[in-house]
């Protein structure tokens, strides 16, 4: 055996000096990680101003998504809105319509919660068959952050809900400050439950592309409702039936009828490694199968992994006990001897819901749904360690 020169020879970094402090006052990842970036699928949309890109989930571990690589979705581009220019209005069926400044929001009691945000169209390109070769592209319309903000309930109560009368049939319409004025109607029950008016994520200010300075967090529900640059909250006695809740974000079934108000993101999981962008390069022997699981209904309680395309399953280890409506990391610590694997994962949440196969979903919905595809994903791991997105019988 030859001695390793990296050990036996004096290396520059062990002799000379490195960067001083302040070399990068706000740090960026080291250059060797430059491939861990958001990516766009150009043919999906007419223009990046109204488009989406994907989180590099294949290259991340743990559960928290760094803001800098958390997917972006804009309807008319990411706008620049100063805190000083920010206003939040609450109007409609409230006792006193109010306007808050950014500084006002930071004076309300606030909370911290980790939640996943998943675009309803995540995995939407896979309805009719395996199409995009990489977990980033099939499942990367998701991120998971720790949000700091004020419960929406607190702000609604500040404006007073007496005027609204019986709250049972009431709705809250939320709208952003950008040109798309993306607006969604949320039932009052959800608005008063766990929605958060957030201004920090992972401890720091929201990024421009995620709605700086203030966005709405709607835990467990489709990302389109997490209105960015939140500027107005209106208490109403019915839904607006805006473009984003009629023309888009509705699920057309095989018979041509469409489901609406399909807000909850059902339990789902994906193996992030090995996967097409994260092949096995270390040869045979011990291997860590790793992935993510989440449910809009609550906590992930169990994840099963199959290596033979769903004929047999074994239960994976959770990185830590699942948080409600947040990503959970799972691991299967095992051995690989160079054989072909058809890797699948299957999430189970605290309601007992078991992530369905693509066939189960198609049987109920057909293939035209676009949104809410939470099917079991299959990666074909080959003898050379590479993996491919496939569909199996």
């Amino acid at each position, binding site marked *: 055996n030859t001695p390793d020169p990296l050990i036996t020879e004096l290396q520059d970094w062990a002799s000379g000096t490195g960067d001083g402090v302040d070399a990068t006052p706000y740090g960026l990842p080291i250059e060797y990680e430059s491939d861990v970036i*958001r990516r*766009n*699928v150009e*043919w*999906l*949309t007419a223009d990046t101003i*109204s488009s989406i890109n994907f989180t590099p989930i294949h290259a991340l571990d743990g559960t928290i998504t760094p803001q800098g690589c958390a997917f972006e979705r804009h309807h*008319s581009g990411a706008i620049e809105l100063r805190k000083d220019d920010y206003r939040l209005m*609450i109007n*409609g069926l409230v006792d*006193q*319509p*109010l*306007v*808050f*400044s950014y500084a*006002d929001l930071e*004076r*309300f009691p606030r909370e911290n919660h980790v939640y996943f945000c998943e675009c309803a*169209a995540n995995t939407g*390109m*896979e309805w009719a*068959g*395996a*199409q*995009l*070769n990489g977990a980033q592209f099939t499942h990367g319309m998701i991120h998971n952050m720790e949000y700091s903000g004020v419960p929406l309930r607190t702000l609604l109560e*500040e404006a*007073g809900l*007496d005027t609204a009368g*019986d*709250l049972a049939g009431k709705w809250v319409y939320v*709208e952003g400050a950008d040109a798309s*004025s993306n607006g969604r109607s949320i039932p009052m029950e959800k608005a008063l439950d766990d929605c958060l008016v957030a201004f920090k994520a992972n401890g720091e200010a929201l990024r421009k592309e995620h709605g700086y300075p203030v966005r709405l967090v709607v835990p467990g529900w489709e990302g389109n409702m997490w209105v960015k640059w939140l500027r107005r909250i*209106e208490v109403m006695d*019915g839904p*607006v*039936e*805006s*473009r984003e809740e*009629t*023309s888009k974000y509705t699920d*057309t079934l095989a018979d*041509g*009828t469409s489901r*609406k*108000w399909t807000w*909850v993101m059902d339990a789902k999981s994906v193996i992030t490694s090995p996967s*097409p962008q994260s092949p096995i390069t270390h040869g045979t022997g011990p291997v860590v199968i790793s992935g993510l699981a989440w449910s809009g209904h609550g906590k992930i309680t169990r994840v099963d992994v199959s290596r033979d395309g*769903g004929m047999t399953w074994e239960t994976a280890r959770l990185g830590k006990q699942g948080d409600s409506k947040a990503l959970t990391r799972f691991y299967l610590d095992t051995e690989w001897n160079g054989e072909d694997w*058809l890797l699948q994962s299957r999430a189970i949440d605290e309601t*007992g*819901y*078991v992530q369905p196969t693509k066939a189960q979903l198609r049987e109920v919905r057909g293939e*035209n749904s*676009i949104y809410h595809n939470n099917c079991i994903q299959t990666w074909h791991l080959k003898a050379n360690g590479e993996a491919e*997105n496939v*569909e*199996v*019988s």
Partner: protein
Amino acid sequence: RMVTFATAATEAEETDTTAAEATPATPQTETVAANTSGFGLGRPALAEEIAAWDLDVSPDGTGLPEGRGDVFTGEEVFAENCAICHGDFAEGVDNWPVLAGGFDTLADKDPVKTVGSYWPYLSTVWDYVNRSMPFGAAQTLEPDDVYAIVAYILYSNDLVDDDFELSHENFAEFEMPNAGGFVVDDRPETEYVNWRSEPCMTDCKQSVEITMRATVLDVTPDEEGSGEASSMSHDSGTQMAAATPAATEVPAAEEPTAEEPAEDAPAVQVAAAAAIDRELVKSGEKVFKKCKACHQIGEGAQNKTGPQLNDVFGRTIGGIDGFKYSKGFKAAADEGRVWDEAAMYEFLSKPKSFIKGTKMSFSGLKKDSDLEAITAFLKANGG
């Protein structure tokens, strides 16, 4: 709702009260706690402020301003503001949304979802056009223009005759064809009941075969993220679901209103090409935001809704092979006219008078400083 606003505004003006001083809320149901304290944060919203932001329109027409517009007017307004992306007949250009047709396709393999075939409420169309369109110049249309555009979209869907006029008065009478096509989320009954059971762990299937491979299609962007993989479009005839989750909105006119007289006329400055002012280029980059929904420039620039702009200076006007120019541009090309700075200044200050019938629905840059900046930006970026 109007009553609520008026009351609130009156209270605000009369008492200059804060939320904390307002009558505390009392619990309405078991689930809602009382606003017993209130933090006294924020200030009352003024009636004018609410009127400026509260523009949403509900299915019953609540929120609509008074106004009217007919199909004939709508055709003109649409051509000016919308056709660049949606096509003269609302048929859609490139990947921009199709607004007309698609009837009886919702149960087909690739349903064509248009305003006519899919949208359940007319209010949604009015509201969306009013608040979010045209792309790049949202909220610049007058109510009568919006009524006219919506009337024209209905006409292009064969839902009204050519003498139809839409107004706040007849709005509520109109029922959209697919109004009954939606059911409220029924997953609890159709899916959850079946999928909340202990799953199989062994011998779950007899055998497994691979039935489809992503690499066969080869539509995945390469690792650089440049997306060179494929030119497959949504409507290509493959069996794949090239779904359009991010189905796009419409770029259209910038400042579709006034054509201002260019009296403080083009003091056409021939910039010293050698020393392109960096500040100028930087501000030109901002001006270019108005252009980039339709035009690309720089490495890899391609024709989009508008032609790519690399080497535009010195290029024959209307001179890119394969781009669908208007008649006016074709004529200019036939005459051998060439883009120089003077021509670009004139065009960008008043596009429609420089090339009659240009499809570029942009009313023009009004400031000389913007014209200078955009020229510098184009030149600095390979234009």
